[in-house]
């Protein structure tokens, strides 16, 4: 026990003094959250810029309530000069230029962005028809009422927080295991320790202990910032995140141990863990929802431990499901850790051949 704690202390002090490792495991993921949160956050549907040239009655005479609805879809600017407006459309600065010629409303658009064209035409058609109805003096026969529904899809911050946190934990744990194993093998510390009263279990145990601690710190800092600054709302079952994070860390440590057992230098260990972790993060939906991915990719990604961690963390942090719902993922993570560690032990070397 003394041996284990001594080694754990040495590792923890070494980690705390490694400013680069601190940055990449704690600060860098926060930077990612800010950037990706900024990209997806706020306006989820983009507004299309249109320029209204001169007087266009269907736009100019709108009641404030209708105008507010239109503004949700279009960003309207005005210009007196048709030639200049058309040039802006050509350059792509504006989705469309709208001009009234007699009783005709003309929409000049670029064919480059069909979504924008559809949206702009839909709005203009609706406004023109509304104006026609008003001009005819008849009450409308049909109206539309819109009601929002709580659906399965989450606000960006709700899925980005577990996803980026999962990636950060995966990167830190696998990197730490690989680099510790390789550098201790390279500088002879592994062999030196094998001649001291501590055994291999203490060496591995110390690495596991310190990495579990780091993962918990990452979780607290990350969820704290997401909740404090980006409006993440924690569900009641948030505490289930703790066993999930610990199980996930074990799985990622085992990846690092395996990588460390296969390579010789710290530089290669660094590259190999990156090559493993970054694609895993994308395929596990860390940076964008997997619902955007094709079905076969989603099926394949079930072999990745990060996929299970991300799914389970979204469930407990944002959706508030119970223990029973995340038990399969928890077992998948632990199972992965056992299998991968077993291979790592089989491939273990005390020194470079």
């Amino acid at each position, binding site marked *: 026990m003394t041996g284990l704690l*001594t*080694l754990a202390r*040495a590792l923890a002090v070494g980690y705390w003094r*490694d400013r680069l490792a601190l940055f990449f495991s704690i600060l860098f993921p926060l930077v990612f959250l800010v950037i990706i949160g900024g990209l997806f956050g706020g306006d989820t549907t983009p507004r299309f810029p249109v320029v209204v040239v001169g007087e266009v009655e269907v736009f100019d005479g709108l009641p404030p309530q209708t105008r507010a609805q239109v503004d949700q879809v279009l960003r309207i600017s005005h210009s007196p000069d048709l030639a200049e407006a058309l040039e802006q459309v050509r350059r792509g600065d504006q989705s469309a230029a709208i001009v009234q010629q007699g009783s005709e409303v003309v929409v000049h658009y670029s064919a480059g962005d069909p979504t924008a064209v559809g949206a702009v035409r839909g709005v203009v058609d609706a406004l023109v028809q509304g104006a026609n109805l008003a001009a005819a003096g008849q009450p409308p026969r049909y109206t539309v009422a819109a009601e929002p529904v709580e659906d399965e899809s989450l606000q960006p911050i709700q899925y980005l927080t577990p996803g980026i946190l999962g990636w950060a934990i995966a990167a830190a744990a696998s990197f730490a295991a690989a680099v510790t194993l390789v550098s201790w093998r390279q500088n002879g510390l592994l062999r*030196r320790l*094998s001649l001291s009263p*501590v055994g291999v279990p203490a060496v591995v145990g110390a690495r596991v202990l310190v990495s579990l601690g780091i993962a918990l710190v990452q979780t607290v800092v990350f969820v704290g910032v997401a909740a404090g600054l980006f409006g993440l709302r924690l569900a009641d079952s948030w505490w289930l995140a703790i066993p999930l994070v610990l199980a996930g860390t074990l799985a990622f440590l085992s990846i690092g141990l395996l990588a460390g057992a296969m390579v010789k230098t710290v530089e290669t260990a660094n590259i190999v863990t990156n090559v493993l972790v970054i694609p895993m993060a994308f395929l596990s939906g860390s940076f964008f929802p997997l619902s955007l991915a094709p079905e076969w990719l989603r099926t394949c990604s079930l072999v990745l431990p990060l996929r299970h961690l991300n799914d389970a963390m979204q469930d407990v942090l944002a959706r508030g499901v119970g223990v029973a719902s995340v038990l399969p993922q928890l077992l998948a993570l632990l199972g992965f850790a056992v299998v991968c560690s077993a291979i790592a032990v089989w491939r273990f070397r005390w020194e470079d051949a």
Partner: protein
Amino acid sequence: MPAAAIMARELQKRYGETVAVDGVSFEVETGEFFGLLGPNGAGKTTTLEIIEGLRRPDAGEATVLGMPSWPRNPALRPRIGVQLQTSAFFERLTAAEQIAAFARLYRVPASRATAMLAAFGLADKAGTRVEQLSGGQRQRLSIACALVHDPEVVFLDEPTAGLDPQARRNLWDLLRGINADGRTVILTTHYLDEAEVLCQRVAIMDHGRILRCGTPAELIRDAGAVSRITVESGRLDADELRKRFPEATVREDGDALVIATRDPGTVLTELAGRDAVRGLSVRGATLEDAFIALTGREYRP
């Protein structure tokens, strides 16, 4: 009569086609300072690592303090101290934290770690991280870590490799001190002068075999190595000296006379009797001469 602290019998180790250790046998008495001397690739380190229990020999057997080295023996670990060729340190710890960690691993009090740091002249470097220590300081720290638990047998693998002459001499004083405390010390070195100065007995290794084993003086004498006596030539006649000492080689070298002999005592007595010792210098035979005599080739570390 104390038992041998270290016993190696017919050790063999090969890596693929290369035979690293080819039938090495020797014993080291308790309290002895023993050296394995040889050029790089002679098999010194592999021999040492087999005895430490780091490697399993293909054949043969090694015991330390009466216990077999292989399979690794937990009871042996607290009783041996090991300094490896690479300085095996925890990254980013200070010198004090480093040795304190080893003290805890061996369950010895922290005060012992502080004392060892001071004994190895590193007290003023206590707060310096291991990465910032000089080569000599790193070696001293590495040896201090190997000694923190007061082991009975100390293994040092090329402790002065890569150090400047001043640092080497400082380290020699410390190493003599370790042995003076009654510990058994075995070291590998490719420096002939180091083996000659430090070791009570030396085994000269080359190509995985021990060529000769004995005290430095024995090795030099047995190799038939000669001493070279140089005096001013004015008072002496070279031909007469050649008749007087037929076994010696007498050579005139400008105004100096060089007498190469296996029996420097008799020659010196004669020279003193004739009052012919102006400008006298004597260069004794060295282990280098012994090595050349044994292998028939220049010594290249």
